[in-house]
């Protein structure tokens, strides 16, 4: 139990713990915000009351997630200073400014309009309300943009240089537009959207399987399906581009993702490892199952490699990522889920085109509905695995190739860090259990289909013009 007295290890554990837990909530609130914009917009356009009820129902799950997301995110911001003070000092010029932008541009926008979105239905006109929803969604996604900008810069630092251990920026736009930025942002943007879509779809499927309001939830499933049709395949494509970037810019991470110990020369057509048992200490895989000739297709879409794939043994043990097994399997799980979700989407669209998603027929689509139910948590797993690949794979560097994680931790006494780590672990477990418990309660309770329309709207519909008045044609006795 040496690690209990190692501040660096404890600080890393604390960061990993807070990041892994925190990630669970913004994933949903960021993607679901876009869904809420879509259904509210559909309501304003079609005036179909059901869309309004969708907006109200899903917003309940949204706000639960949002609140916990905010709460669990606070430690992230302060941790850079408390546990990684040398890091903060070294890269504050750029990294700190970006976190400042996130707060001022994104987070404040989201928080400033959230109150109106949640409680303002009867206080502002419908279009203003929709604008508030749009601002919330825009703010959330702008957060993704800035966070991914900051993180991408850690992976591919550009726009300045390290002088005496401090990063001095010479060109901010170059630093923001670092090589990883665009694909990383898009990959995460689609990840939040896809995860949210399959959560909404999965919950809808659960209602339909239980024959609760199948028509109502068939509707949300179709909205989800229409968006997923674009998102799911696109995500696989962006994912591929991201992996290709890792291949070019972070060879030690790529080697860990593929558990490749020995260098493969350019011009060969190597096998791709499907399952393996990597062994860090011996610098090789204990056993593995390989698909012949596959790797060059995956990396370059060509039968032979144009660049060599460097093996982990090229680097001294202290210069390459550890926990190769974790990185290797996280990558495989993430990719597998991406392909499964796209497949499920394809299958569902096929059923839709065959006319099987009507209110009457949809309840019999057991296989498809179970697929969706199973898919609901998968996005989360994929996102977590993706972040593990991204950040564990970057080790031993905090800023790739420049600053070592081991030098960046605050020299705190280990017992203090251990105490805060245990405190956060307890608190986050409570958040996790609470979120599942109260989230499932909202779901079990279901939507309130009796909910009246907002006051301003119901007034409009009541004010019937005298010209349009239709005299009651019924016999006098049956008139009330």
């Amino acid at each position: 139990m040496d690690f209990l007295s190692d501040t660096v290890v404890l600080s890393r554990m604390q960061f990993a713990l807070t990041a892994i837990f925190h990630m669970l909530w913004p994933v949903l609130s960021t993607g679901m915000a876009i869904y809420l914009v879509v259904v509210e917009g559909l309501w304003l356009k079609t005036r179909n009351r059901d869309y309004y009820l969708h907006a109200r129902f899903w917003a309940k799950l949204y706000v639960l997630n949002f609140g916990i997301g905010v709460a669990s995110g606070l430690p992230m911001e302060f941790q850079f200073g408390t546990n990684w003070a040398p890091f903060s000092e070294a890269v504050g010029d750029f990294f700190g400014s970006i976190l400042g932008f996130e707060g001022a541009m994104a987070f404040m926008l989201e928080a400033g309009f959230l109150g109106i979105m949640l409680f303002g239905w009867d206080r502002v006109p419908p279009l203003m309300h929709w604008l508030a929803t749009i601002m919330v969604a825009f703010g959330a996604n702008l957060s993704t943009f800035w966070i991914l900008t900051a993180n991408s810069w850690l992976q591919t630092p550009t726009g300045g240089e390290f002088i005496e251990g401090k990063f001095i920026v010479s060109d901010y736009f170059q630093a923001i537009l670092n090589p990883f930025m665009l694909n990383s942002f898009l990959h995460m943007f689609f990840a939040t959207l896809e995860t949210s879509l399959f959560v909404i779809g999965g919950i809808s499927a659960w209602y339909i399987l239980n024959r609760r309001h199948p028509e109502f939830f068939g509707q949300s499933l179709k909205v989800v399906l229409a968006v997923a049709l674009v998102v799911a395949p696109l995500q696989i494509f962006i994912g591929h581009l991201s992996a290709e970037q890792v291949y070019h810019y972070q060879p030690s991470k790529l080697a860990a993702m593929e558990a490749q110990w020995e260098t493969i020369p350019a011009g060969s057509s190597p096998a791709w490892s499907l399952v393996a048992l990597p062994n860090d200490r011996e610098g090789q895989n204990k056993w593995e199952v390989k698909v012949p000739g596959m790797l060059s297709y995956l990396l370059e879409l060509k039968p032979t490699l144009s660049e060599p794939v460097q093996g982990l043994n090229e680097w001294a043990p202290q210069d390459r990522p550890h926990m190769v097994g974790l990185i290797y399997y996280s990558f495989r799980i993430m990719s597998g889920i991406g392909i499964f979700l796209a497949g499920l989407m394809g299958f569902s669209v096929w059923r839709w085109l065959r006319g099987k998603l009507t209110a009457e027929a949809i309840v019999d689509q057991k296989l498809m509905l179970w697929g969706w139910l199973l898919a609901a948590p998968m996005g989360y797993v994929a996102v977590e695995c993706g972040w593990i690949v991204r950040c564990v794979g970057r080790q031993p560097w905090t800023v790739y190739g420049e600053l070592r994680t081991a030098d960046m931790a605050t020299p705190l006494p280990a017992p203090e860090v251990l105490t805060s780590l245990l405190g956060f672990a307890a608190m986050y477990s409570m958040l996790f259990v609470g979120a599942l418990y109260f989230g499932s309660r909202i779901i079990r309770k279901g939507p309130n289909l009796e909910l009246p329309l907002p006051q301003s709207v119901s007034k409009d519909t009541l004010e019937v013009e005298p010209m349009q008045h239709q005299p009651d044609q019924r016999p006098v006795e049956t008139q009330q």
Partner: protein
Amino acid sequence: MEALEQFLPQVWFVILGLFLFLYVTLDGFDLGVGILSLTASNEESRSILMTSLGNIWDANETWLVLVGGTLFGAFPLAYATVLHALYIPVSVMVGGLILRAVAFEFRENSVRSKQLWNFAFGAGSFMAALGQGFAVGTVFEGIAVDTAGHFVGGVWDWLSWKSLLVALTLIQGYVLIGSTYLVMKTTGTLQQTHYKTAKLAAVTTFLGAVFITVSTPVFYEQMRDRMFDPPLFYFFAAIPLLGSLFVALLLRSLGKEQERMPFVWTVLIFLLSFLGLGLIIFPYIIPPQITIYQAAASPSALVFMIIFIGFLIPIMLFYNIYNYVVFRGKVTQAHESD
């Protein structure tokens, strides 16, 4: 260029001050209401208390995120050193903020465990205020650093009777502003109760402030020199005098049962105390050694941040005010959970 190197950190010191003041005032009444909820007599009044915060607590707390972000970006050294020195108070604050935020969401959806989340809401608010109070007290008192500005003290340095005094005064201040906010937002018995808590908190906050004002020149040599330096002396003499006047006006308006003025006076008292603290600390950002000029990011970073954050300040203020305008008026019943 040299003028710029002086000017930019000063601009960011003022912006940081603005964000911090907005945070302390806005989340101040938020946390104050939270602490007061511990004393609420029944579930209905507690619901009204929490409803009065429902649409704004999150936006208010965001100013803290902004304070953190701008400190990190504009004064990285201060961010690193201060948070290192304040490891425990900051962890307590963050823990408290987590508790109260989730208490909001969980309470709303709970049936049997309402009491538990009520308590978590109040206790979380108290923890957050306590952590902040110790943080302010410690920064005020001074942080032990080497010549490079790195923290060289121990993890318990923040704990002293002087920082405890600041912490208790800040908690009282939050209870005061929370009470005057509730006077403005509620009616009937609930309003009457908070006229009382406001009076009590006004007195205790005032006593704390007097004690801090008097003890500062007595115990801190460096600050004594600054405070009795001629041009600043007039400010340091004027602030407590004006502050006492505002407290008197606050008590009078509470006595006359005015609805909005108590909150206004309290905000002015906050502003005045804040200016006093700012003037004493300036130009240091890690008292008693590191100035804002030493801790500042590079001039290009500061300019870049002004371009990206500076123009957003009026916009942020605008939509935050709009949010308050939309939800103006009394809270007479809890949000209906549909």
